[in-house]
């Protein structure tokens, strides 16, 4: 079936370093891939998305890379800050008929140390 998974369950980084969170997906029919951040006790928060016909997209301090050949997605966070500590989910919209029903992976916990 369709699935979105992550390579690393936890990632510890020093404040100021760059972080890279990886994700593998299986559904080639997805139009969009999206990264969400979830802080403890809160709902997921949209970070950035990338359309399937793109390889790279940049936002504020974040970059998403999409490699369709190996079905791999990554989120790069520059100059990681303590406020970046959270669980990060990649998600894809599968082939949900246009209304973007999201299929989430299990998540990677990012811990930023001072």
């Amino acid at each position: 079936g369709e699935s979105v998974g992550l390579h690393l369950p936890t990632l510890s980084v020093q404040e100021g370093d760059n972080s890279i969170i990886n994700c593998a997906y299986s559904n080639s029919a997805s139009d969009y891939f999206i990264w969400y951040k979830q802080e403890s006790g809160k709902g997921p928060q949209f970070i950035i998305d990338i359309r399937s016909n793109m390889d790279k997209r940049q936002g504020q301090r974040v970059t998403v890379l999409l490699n369709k050949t190996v079905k791999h997605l990554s989120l790069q966070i520059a100059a990681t800050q303590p406020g970046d500590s959270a669980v990060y989910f990649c998600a894809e919209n599968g082939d949900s008929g246009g209304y973007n029903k999201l299929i989430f992976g299990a998540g990677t916990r990012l811990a930023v140390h001072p």
Partner: protein
Amino acid sequence: GAGVSQSPRYKVAKRGQDVALRCDPISGHVSLFWYQQALGQGPEFLTYFQNEAQLDKSGLPSDRFFAERPEGSVSTLKIQRTQQEDSAVYLCASSLVVGDTEAFFGQGTRLTVV
């Protein structure tokens, strides 16, 4: 408030009890989703509304789960005869237009069935 509001934040139910979870989406948002998030896992899709129409209920785990959005704004997720396996965080998300990749999530309702 300007965000998605869910109530109650926490609900403890005895096994066999019926519960109702409420979601107030952002005003004017057409799309509304319900997701279920087990501890340590990513959210899993339950059901989708476009205005008042429930277009997808493929993720509802059993006929004990029922959702409605009668006037195209507030939505209620009802679980009848709760079981321990229903214990999870129930998340509501809304988006402005159909196909919008940015969904705004509420804080969720944590349901514990004892």
